[in-house]
């Protein structure tokens, strides 16, 4: 779907991290957790390409006044890293954006009842909130979230409000445990009975570690990847990632945009 979206709000939620709410067509709230959008920052050619962002939340705003039409919306949580995100952060409510989405394949929620473990690093949390919203309807959910400092740990209150149990780790110890979030994850996996299901999004190093931890323990694990994207719809082949059996002789590149961004970790090639 391609649509013109009007910004409803655009707020800095932590230094360098912004949360933007914007209008969406009525079909949009059916987006699956883990899907993403491609946003055109402006109509000029600088920046030229769209920018991909996870869908942080979707919903329908019902105005207080009777008679006023209800307004479907979507939210993004983004970090300012360069030109495009810099320009996004300078936009105001009522500004318009051209949006493509929801794109790609989202998370498989798994069976009700089994423990759901969500692992997020930094702005990798973005697509996990909508996921948590769905998961809490059917299962107990734990969130393991890591960041460099406390400023990189985002929106914990929102997750807690859903009833998610949150474990926080920061590399400098400024919030929660000091260290990597994977340490807390390993402890939890040792403690938990039954097979939980892992969902992860964050820096590649973290995903690599999580995928390894899950593989060792035979725990189903889905990861949401990033990749440099031009089209977002499987046409340019810019965003690919090697599948588990990929080699130059038996090429098996998957499109992050169309085959993912969410993959079963077991399908992909990881560094040992």
């Amino acid at each position, binding site marked *: 779907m391609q649509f013109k979206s009007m910004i409803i709000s655009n707020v800095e939620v932590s230094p360098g991290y912004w949360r933007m709410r914007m209008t969406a067509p009525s079909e949009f709230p059916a987006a699956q957790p883990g899907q993403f959008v491609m946003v055109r920052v402006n109509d000029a050619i600088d920046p030229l390409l769209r920018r991909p962002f996870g869908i942080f939340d979707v919903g329908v705003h019902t105005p207080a006044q009777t008679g006023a039409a209800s307004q479907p919306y979507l939210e993004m949580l983004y970090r300012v890293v360069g030109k495009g995100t810099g320009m996004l952060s300078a936009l105001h409510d009522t500004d318009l954006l051209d949006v493509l989405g929801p794109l790609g394949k989202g998370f498989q929620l798994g069976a009700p009842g089994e423990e759901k473990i969500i692992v997020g690093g930094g702005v990798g949390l973005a697509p996990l909130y909508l996921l948590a919203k769905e998961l809490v309807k059917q299962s107990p959910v734990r969130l393991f979230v890591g960041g460099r400092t406390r400023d990189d740990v985002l929106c914990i209150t929102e997750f807690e409000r859903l009833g998610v149990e949150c474990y926080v780790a920061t590399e400098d110890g400024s919030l929660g445990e000091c260290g990597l979030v994977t340490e807390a994850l390993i402890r939890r996996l040792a403690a938990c009975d039954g097979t939980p299901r892992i969902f992860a999004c964050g820096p590649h190093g973290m995903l690599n570690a999580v995928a390894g931890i899950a593989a060792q323990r035979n725990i189903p694990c889905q990861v949401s990847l990033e990749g440099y994207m031009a089209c977002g719809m499987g046409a340019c082949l810019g965003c690919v990632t090697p599948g588990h059996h990929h080699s130059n002789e038996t090429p098996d*590149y998957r499109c992050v945009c169309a085959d993912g961004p969410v993959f079963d970790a077991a399908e992909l090639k990881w560094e040992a």
Partner: protein
Amino acid sequence: MKPDLSVSIAGLELRNPVMTASGTFGYGEEFAEYVDLATIGAFVTKGLSLRPRAGNPTPRIVETPGGMLNAIGLQNVGIDAFIEKKVPFLRSVATPAIANFFGNTIDEYAELARRLDAIPEIAGLEVNISCPNVKQGGIVFGTDPQCAFQVVTACREATIKPLIVKLSPNVTDIVSMAKACADAGADALSLINTLTGMAIDLERRRPVLANITGGLSGPAVKPVALRMVWQVARAVNLPIIGIGGIMNARDALEFILAGATAVQVGTASFINPGAAQEIAEGMEKWLAENGVEDVKSLIGALEA
């Protein structure tokens, strides 16, 4: 009165001059939601090779000022999988499908032309000669007139379908390349392919692309593309398909004034997936508003 947008290229009758460029429109299906194929002149497949190709490691693309570099490395499913998995879709499409292809030797080119010639769903062939000639020490076919002549001659002998040769802009003299292809029996020329470029990640002190260099496309290259189309159109008596940085109907019409009979839309489809259709519609609107009854009257109509 509705303006006439139809053009014919090398025996292909197109409802309008707007095609999609190879490598930017998948195999046609990917954009179904955004472009009604029946509204554009033709579409060109991703470049095909005899065997499947893995392509390059990532990163494969990077944005540059007003453009982008790609080093996909010609990843494709190979001709067999193409026939099995992609051709059936073409049957349902009432728009000419043109197969773009490339080889690493002249024999590979010829063999591909022969195989594609046998596919009824393929309306025409576009030879990408911007590939290294493995037998001649890696010199790119499309940068040497003699190499180009040989490869086009071989393809010409292998197909009776319309044969379009796609030229590389990374040459001193685009006209001599065009002439060599014309002499070898090409029915039409498409230009330009991407300009070779590079981007550097200052912090990491590395090239951004895993392949180090890549091909520049997008609005940044439009002036170079227009110049080459104009030069070739004046020198060679073959229909030309103009390519390079076309973002809207005005850009497309500029290429037609410069001498192109049709155009291809590449990078624009990434930014606006409906670009090709919108450009075709925009051309019709511009012609109507400017009292031009037939787009063919604009081909090469530049007063220069």
